[in-house]
């Protein structure tokens, strides 16, 4: 090991010790028999999960709501992202380009959950949809802008040189080249957003997360476990479906 390694190692150990001290966390107390027993009773209260018909129906609605939030949020983000990507790709000159990029960076650097907490006037699933839309628009817009910048210019130029107007040249010269990529990006973000929509409700934005939050607040642990199982199933299904589709499309 070099000397730099030792310095880094010592600094890390020091930082870890300082963190525990700063939070006045006592690991011994957290791992004491009494605390472990309490934790065990808490965990045991979750079993068995609530599988009664009416609750399963509510979880089903929550799952549909989660899917709907992710789909609408992603669709809105795709539209907004495309609208911002055109100026961000420099189609209207350098000043709008810089402004659009700044806006995209801002949208992107605030996480979905923070956006959801900031949506004060909309409540429930609509707040979740908007939160997903803002963050995803930032991500997608940037990717779209890069795609537009890298797209071949010749087809649009040819159209303009033969007398086509600029918007039509963009629609018929540039768009056909980039649409497959835009669709692929949007679908990929949709996949990520399903996972995010499942937990956004924890800050009050509808879907499965809200059910979980409510049941935990009412100390209905069996119902909470049902929701957690539904979340895990949903994510596993989405993962499986996307892997299957990818294999299909690639092969």
């Amino acid at each position, binding site marked *: 090991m070099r000397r*730099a*390694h030792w310095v*880094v190692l010592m600094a890390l150990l020091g*930082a*870890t010790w*300082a*963190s*525990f001290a*700063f*939070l006045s*966390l006592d690991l011994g107390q*957290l791992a004491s028999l009494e*605390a472990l027993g*309490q*934790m065990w009773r*808490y965990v045991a209260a979750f079993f068995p999960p609530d599988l009664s018909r009416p609750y399963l129906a509510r979880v089903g609605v929550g799952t*549909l*709501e989660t*899917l*709907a*939030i992710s*789909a*609408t949020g992603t*669709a809105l983000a795709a539209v907004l992202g495309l609208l911002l990507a055109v100026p961000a790709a420099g189609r209207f000159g350098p000043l709008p380009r810089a402004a659009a990029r700044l806006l995209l960076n801002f949208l992107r*650097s*605030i*996480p979905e*959950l*923070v956006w959801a*907490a*900031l949506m*004060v*006037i*909309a409540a*429930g*699933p*609509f707040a*979740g*949809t908007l939160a997903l839309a803002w963050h995803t628009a930032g991500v997608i817009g940037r990717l779209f802008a890069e795609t537009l910048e890298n797209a071949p210019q010749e087809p649009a130029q040819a159209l303009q040189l033969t007398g086509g107007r600029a918007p039509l040249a963009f629609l*018929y010269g540039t768009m056909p080249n980039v649409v497959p990529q835009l669709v692929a990006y949007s679908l990929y973000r949709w996949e990520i957003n399903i*996972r995010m929509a*499942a*937990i956004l409700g*924890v*800050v009050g934005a*509808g879907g499965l997360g809200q059910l*979980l*939050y409510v049941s*935990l607040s009412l100390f209905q642990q069996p119902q909470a476990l049902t929701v*957690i199982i539904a*979340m*895990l199933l949903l*994510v*596993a299904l989405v993962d499986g479906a996307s892997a299957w589709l990818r294999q299909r499309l690639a092969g």
Partner: protein
Amino acid sequence: MRMRDPAALPRAALTIFVLLLLVPAFSLTEFNPGVLFEARSRETMGKFIASFFPLATSPEFLRLVMRSTLETLAIATAGMAIALVLACPLAVVVARSLSISRIGPGPGYLAGRILRVPARFLLMFFRSVPEIVWALLFVRAVGLGPAAGVLAIGVAYGGMLGKVYSEILESNDTRPTTALLETGSGRIEAFFYGTWPVVLPELVSYSVYRWECAVRASVIMGFVGAGGLGQQMELSMRMLNGGEVSTILIVFLLLVVLADALSALLRKVTA
């Protein structure tokens, strides 16, 4: 001469089809952009946004934000320490590169197989429950405050680190380890002389990257009461104090940039 677009009809049909698919989604999400433009909500929103400026810069509040920022960093660091304690043994158990029975008949074949299954399952369980759900559960179990955040990061990141560590142990050059094991060295020696030097840089750089993610995660977990900057922001949001919210948002963005820079520096030093 005006030309008609020959592909117009199929394109319009496809667009309408997708929109029709979205219609039930619109109703399920209570999609109502009108809400954004109603006079009353526009007033609320306008007031809220207007209250973002000027930033809250009173010395007491800044001191509070400073404390929460340090708390967030401490939660991320302490959480990572717990995650490492969970992940390292599980990763070594799950990884097959140190198995002696792999290279020939030997003791421990059955034990290895039996031990590996629950270890794998545990890692999968830890990482598939999202970190904010862990935070919510731990807030209920140990109460509001940073301890819940530390435990949530410890468990969720323990699962992630364990999986990635075991993959790193298996995917790097395993020939030195295998050579040592084949010439009769014990597993501990084989690990420290054969595996460790090969995998160290990758382990360190991945762990540092995860620490950076933990900083972001610990801010967000604060929203459900797990301490740090997020909890402070939640409080300010509840009181609709825009000035405080915008100060915290700026501190959050700075913190992310700073963690990013620090992690890049650490990775460069240790690479």
